[in-house]
């Protein structure tokens, strides 16, 4: 059941140097009472400097665990180096079941500027996290410490990664609060998190993430807990800061609308695997995987032609015991014999960088996508 994945190559006209973050064949398994949960199972993607990668998928598809594994933030995690030809899944299960120390295990590679984060020392990781790679989490209520002022938390973040005095760190903290649009930053720096509204707290989180000028910002559902008007403020803020500083962003979200607005490249995940990877325009205009069609079809649109939404039947599979073959096959209206047995590889259809993991012929994919796109086009014409 090993999936070999096309190495990610930055194709196209630009002779880009190596991507900023290059994740290959990442697997993270958890040991639970019920068995081994294959939370991430052979995921590959890359992020170029200054770009935004949108990772989209439903709850439990492994999008958050992927990014946590990249930063080795899983608790009690082991890391295992495997040969390239190894049957990684079976070997990992074997190791996890035997291990008394670890309850989770990650394999694969995640090269950040040429350095593999999965084999990096913990000192090195501590320097990278919050320094070169920063992360913002979904819930701004629980990711700030309620018993310290936001100033203390910002100053701590700055002093951990920069060799500066407390006074200078405070100055930087005030500037970064100013940057994210918190009024009267000089006074508010001594306030506690509960004195801020949800949107303001998320701004504080962003200020903290960007205080050390990271090259990569990982945002895990940064606007899910917020109202739409606040969401558009926060997305606008992330976009502006990204333009000013050239930070690359990985935006994890379940909201296709958010992806459409901010992402350059999109990774669609389903049941611990990547099913489609392409530029944002390709994903929305020529989607090639049936799951992507289903996702786009189940979205109520501003000017729906259809009275009924195209729903995806059934539930996502359990990752304890995922179906053999294509994991989407049991819910897929296009599946045929082969889908239930063989695992489709993530591959392109020729020269493009548009990758998908599906056994349908190119003609079928193009035809279905065309049908979908014309429907969507009439949708938006109003």
């Amino acid at each position, binding site marked *: 059941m090993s999936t070999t994945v096309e190495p990610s190559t930055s194709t196209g006209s630009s002779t880009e140097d190596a991507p900023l973050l290059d994740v290959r064949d990442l697997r993270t398994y958890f040991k639970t009472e019920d068995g081994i949960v294959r939370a991430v199972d052979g995921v590959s993607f890359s992020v170029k400097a200054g770009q935004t990668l949108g990772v989209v998928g439903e709850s439990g598809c492994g999008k958050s665990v992927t990014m946590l594994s990249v930063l080795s933030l899983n608790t009690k995690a082991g890391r295992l180096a495997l040969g390239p030809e190894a049957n990684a899944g079976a070997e990992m299960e074997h190791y996890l079941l035997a291990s008394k120390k670890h309850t989770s295990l990650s394999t694969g590679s995640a090269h950040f500027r040429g350095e593999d984060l999965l084999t990096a020392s913990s000192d090195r990781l501590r320097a990278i996290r919050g320094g070169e790679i920063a992360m913002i989490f979904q819930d701004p209520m629980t990711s700030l410490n309620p018993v310290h002022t936001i100033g203390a938390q910002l100053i701590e973040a700055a002093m951990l990664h920069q060799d500066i005095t407390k006074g200078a760190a405070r100055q930087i903290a005030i500037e970064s609060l100013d940057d994210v649009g918190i009024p009267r930053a000089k006074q508010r720096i001594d306030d506690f998190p509960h004195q801020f509204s949800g949107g303001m707290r998320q701004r504080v989180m962003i200020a903290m993430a960007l205080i050390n000028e990271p090259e990569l910002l990982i945002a895990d559902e940064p606007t899910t807990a917020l109202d739409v008007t606040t969401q558009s403020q926060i997305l606008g803020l992330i976009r502006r800061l990204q333009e000013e500083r050239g930070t690359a962003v990985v935006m994890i979200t379940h909201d296709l609308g958010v992806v459409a607005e901010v992402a350059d490249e999109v990774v669609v995940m389903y049941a611990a695997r990547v099913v489609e990877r392409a530029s944002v325009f390709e994903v929305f205009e020529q989607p090639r995987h049936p799951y992507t069609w289903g996702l*786009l079809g189940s979205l109520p649109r501003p000017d729906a032609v259809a009275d009924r939404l195209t729903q995806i039947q059934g539930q996502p599979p359990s990752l304890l015991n995922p179906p053999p073959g294509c994991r989407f096959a049991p819910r897929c209206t296009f599946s045929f014999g082969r889908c239930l047995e063989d695992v489709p590889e993530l591959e392109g259809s020729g020269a493009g960088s548009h990758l998908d993991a599906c056994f349908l012929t190119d003609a079928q994919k193009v035809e279905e996508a065309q049908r979908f796109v014309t429907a969507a086009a009439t949708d938006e014409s109003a």
Partner: protein
Amino acid sequence: MSDPILQIDNVVKHFPITKGIVFQRQVAAVQAVDDVSFTVERGETLGIVGESGCGKSTLARCIMRLVEPTSGRIIFDGQDITALSRSQMRSVRREMMMVFQDPYASLNGRKRVGFIVSEPLEVHGIGTPAEQKRRVQELLEVVGLNPEHYNRFPHEFSGGQRQRIGIARALAVNPKLIVCDEPVSALDVSVQAQILNLLKDLQSEFGLTYIFIAHDLNVVRHISDRVGVMYLGKLVDLAGSAELYKHPRHPYTGALLSAIPIANPRVGRERTSTVLEGDVPNPINPPSGCRFHPRCPRAQSDICDAVEPALQERGGGHTTACFFPLERWPLTHEEMATVDRAAAEGVRREVAQAIEAALAPAL
């Protein structure tokens, strides 16, 4: 076609804030719902949208009389239910049911599905136990669950399936009106589509009337015939859903619409969105005049901050509470912020006269 099943007249709900332990006195009130009126026609779906804290859930609870409205009248099916006693309410509750937001918290985890769904039947004394069981199995089938799951516990179901159980429970006593309070916001998009389709199917099958409360404007647009927009306890805009989304008249509605991310990268990136500044004000001490004026790009001094605009018919079945409704849509940020000078003067004069007239008897 006026056959209202529900009429809401000037409903107000203020939650008092008290001080003192022995001698409690009210020091302020959270003005959760303030003077809201509308009617719901039989067989239609009325959507209510607004941001968190705008009072939409409190309004739903007032309609069900799960919280007592401070003042105002609720007329359900020709009967004023505002003053009914608890036992009188019981027979009314058979006709109106509720589906809640959180499918994890709204089902009792210690009871089997059969019990949960048959409880309304039990409460209203409908049928013998055998008939109740048959009814429950029928209901489970109607909402797309396996009738054999009668004896399972809620934790054995996924979020979407639990929401189906909640819907089956609401349908058990054949209600006329179902109030859905954010029924799909806890669900993933593919499951959300399943539930929305189910609600539509049930409506045409059983002739149900829905009040559908949600913060997702696209979801509300999809399911509703008419949509009301609430801001800080007030109903500010009410129109047919196609009309409201194509020609929003209230600046807040416009701002909300331009804040929804569009799942189309070309359309989404080209439009100029009106980003509202700041947060929703505190409902304990709402702004004077129009409650939206501190964040409104069109606000005019001495008008919007002085007098509260009433809901006014603007043609096309569109009622809006604004002195300077939007002329067309979409507007650029500059156009949003410009108000016709002559119109402003006219309104200013009217407002001044109205204030004078109101003060005259006192003088």
